[in-house]
């Protein structure tokens, strides 16, 4: 039995459907990310799970208990907001101990627990300071310590890193993930940052327009996007418009390209033939390679660790990522003609 079971959840604001029939299971101890563009309903779903903005229809079960109708105060969760919502007039220690005080614990026990939590988030000496005296990253950790203080069964993180600058964000990603693994607390994080989701989550729930597009491990989501939306939203993707000529062949312009079998699509369907820029091969191509094309480098953009090339193969234009090594070894430059291959096992095809 899963720890959290969301069934047929709907949320409407007047005529607007913010969530349409969402069902989802989260296992105990799992780290799940809700990923999607702004307005996709990921925060609405999180707030419904917390009971902050109750659903219009559907049920939520937590640990076998139906919590659908419970107010937030009677549910078991800790939450960290994008703004952190730290109480500015209370010290860090009072913030972290805020939920402990009302549980009538002995003062010494509270102090001990607060010290423990501050040590856990790497701020053992911040207790007497006020939130305004801390950096954004430190405030974020205090908010995390406060949310964990009452040892909730479920930790909810609403875009916890998006207010931080890039470097701090990168470090905190690892720290939060490590902390979550140590404590084993079931965690749901909302984010619009695909990299964040890919590096932190055990499973990713990709959402769009109030519906779930795909649920899967980061590798699944990246390697085998289930829909064109996921393919486009996560990572970079070439989309070539064409027609399915045979179950394993797509006609793109004048080119006939091989693809994995598409049992779900009828021949003659308008499709989009997709391949990621880093999957375009140029090195060590056997002469009998499938989907072998000859292309010309139309543009070469320096990104840093790699270069992104815009290739023209006849009337087809596609992006390819080349490592610096490869560029040096093959002498790739603008105007250079190259043989490229589009390995069929890397290709995805979606109905247009």
């Amino acid at each position, binding site marked *: 039995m899963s720890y959290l079971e969301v069934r047929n959840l709907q949320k409407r604001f007047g005529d607007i459907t913010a969530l349409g029939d969402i069902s989802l299971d989260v296992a105990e101890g799992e780290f799940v990310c809700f990923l999607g563009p702004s307005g996709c309903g990921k925060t609405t779903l999180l707030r419904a799970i917390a*009971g902050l903005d109750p659903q219009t*229809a559907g049920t939520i079960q937590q640990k076998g208990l139906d919590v659908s109708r419970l*107010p937030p*105060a009677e549910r078991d969760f800790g939450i960290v907001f994008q703004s952190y*919502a730290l109480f500015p007039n209370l010290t860090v220690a009072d913030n972290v101990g805020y939920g402990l005080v009302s549980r009538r614990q002995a003062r010494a026990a509270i102090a001990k627990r607060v010290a423990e939590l501050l040590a856990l988030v790497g701020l053992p000496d911040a207790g007497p300071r006020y939130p305004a005296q801390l950096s954004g990253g430190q405030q974020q950790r205090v908010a995390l310590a406060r949310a964990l203080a*009452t040892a909730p069964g479920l930790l909810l993180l609403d875009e916890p890193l998006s207010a931080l600058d890039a470097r701090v964000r990168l470090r905190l990603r690892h720290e939060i993930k490590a902390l979550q693994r140590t404590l084993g607390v079931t965690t749901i994080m909302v984010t619009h940052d695909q990299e964040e989701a890919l590096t932190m989550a055990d499973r990713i729930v990709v959402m769009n327009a109030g519906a779930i597009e795909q649920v899967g491990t980061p590798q699944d989501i990246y390697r085998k996007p289930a829909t064109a939306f996921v393919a486009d939203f996560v990572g970079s993707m070439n989309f070539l418009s064409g027609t399915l000529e045979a179950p394993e062949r797509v006609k793109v312009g004048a080119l006939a390209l091989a693809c994995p079998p598409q049992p779900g699509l009828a021949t003659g369907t308008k499709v989009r033939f997709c391949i990621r820029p880093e999957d375009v091969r140029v090195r060590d191509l056997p002469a009998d390679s499938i989907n072998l094309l000859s292309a010309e480098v139309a543009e070469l953009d320096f990104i840093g660790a790699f270069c992104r090339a815009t290739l023209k193969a006849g009337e087809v234009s596609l992006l390819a990522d080349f490592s610096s090594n490869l560029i040096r070894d093959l002498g790739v430059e603008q105007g250079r003609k190259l043989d490229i291959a589009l390995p069929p096992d890397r290709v995805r095809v979606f109905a247009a």
Partner: protein
Amino acid sequence: MSLVLPAPRVRLSRDDFLMRLGVVALVVVLLLMVGLPLWTLLAKGFEDRDGHFVGLANYAAYFSTPALFISALNSFQVAAVCTVIVVPLAFLYAYALTRAVLPLRWLFQGIALIPIFAPSLLPGLALIYLFGNQGFFKAWLGGGQIYGFEGIVIAQVFYCFPHATLILVTALATADARLYEAADALGASKLRVFFTVTLPGAKYGVISAALVVFTLVITDFGVAKVIGGNFNVLATDVYKQVIGQQNFSMGAVVGMVLLAPAALAFGIDQLVQRKQVALLTARAVPLVPKPKAGRDLFFTLFCIAVSIGILAILGMAAWGSLIKYWPYNLSLTWANYKFETFDANGWDSYYNSLAMAAGAAIFGTALTFVGAWLTEKTRAFYLLRDLVRFLAFLPMAVPGLVLGLGYIFFFNAPSNPLNFLYATMAILVINTVAHFYTVGHLTAITALKQIDPEFEAVSASLKVPIWRTFMRVTAPICLPSILDIAIYLFVNGMTTVSSVIFLYSPDTKLASVAALNIEEAGTTAAAAALCIVIVLTSAAVKALHLLADRFLLGRLQAWRRR
């Protein structure tokens, strides 16, 4: 497969339940304080003296009585002229305070606020000293006299000036320096910059200031009472009908006529405010004026001139209050401050005022802040929360005189179980809180909107009751705004005349009302003395507030420092 599930209603938590109970209680309180008195007043206009329903007969009588109808025209005329004078004057003054480099800027800002601390009859009294039948400069009027249109206009300009200035300073202070840099870079002339950047930015402030001045003038009672002479206006008509002729029904009709322009101005202001979008985004660069000799000299001289005008009126009242027998014996005396010689209540009316203002400040602040918090933070419950918003806004559109009249009808009715409140200090406090409810409510709402909306969600997740977060976090964070509300209620409680004039009893007479009575009895000097005592008291409380803000709050609010 798509299941159609019944919408599960979320159970109320203890917090939700208590807060909804609070909202219901607030609605009841506001209905008693504002809604029902106004409703009773409205109904009264359709009754004859014996309480029989007569339909529109009173209104027909009103509009066919030329004397009464002329008052309405007079009121409009005075209000229009005052608006045309005050708004440009206040605009220049506010422009000087925000866009020029002034020496002693804080002093000029302080002087502009002085009239707020005075009852509206003070400028009237000062003008009597200056231009009255025995005034110093009566000869200047060349046979004309100050009693009437001109006197009302001058006194109203003094009385309304700070209100318009405050609004315009706010409007002009929120400027984005980048717009000016862009205009400069594009080579726009100073005049063009003024008309394309400055004025559009302050447009809504100007409209708002004009409407506020118009409403203040049309609804004010003290000035016209003191210096109006035979020039009748709506506000004095209400008083005459009710106190003079005991014609309550006609008083109610005039009250409704008085309510119309005030409500209209309020409605327009609301429409205009809705159109206003935040000009100052988080990324804006605040405009800091750079020194510029010619402009700064002009504005310094302008501010000095206006300040002299304000101080002259205040100083005249103060001096007059110290003089033995104007204008024949100009030696100084404290005799006019022995109020027991002029009014049976003596100094008691002043102590009554102190008690009333303090009561309004304490109970009013508690009610407005808790009320605003309940409206903001209660989950769902939209209908009643909207009703609270409406009732909280209503007093702004209602002249004090009209509200006071509504109170007589509502609380004096023998059938009302609350009529034990009539003629007590409590009803004066309640009336004052109701009369000035809107500004406190808006101040509290603004303060509450500035704090993180997720505090309550965090508290709920930590299983901390919401009232605890209110006490430990929300209220302490809003302390400066809470003090602002309290001071605002105190100062208005000290100076208000219009709404309480119908409600005092011999034991609860207030200083501002006593000043009016003393003036009516012909002793200008003692009336001026009482006004000066009121000014000094409210100004002292405001000064204490500023000191507390700087020193005490600085210590209590150490957490604000980085």
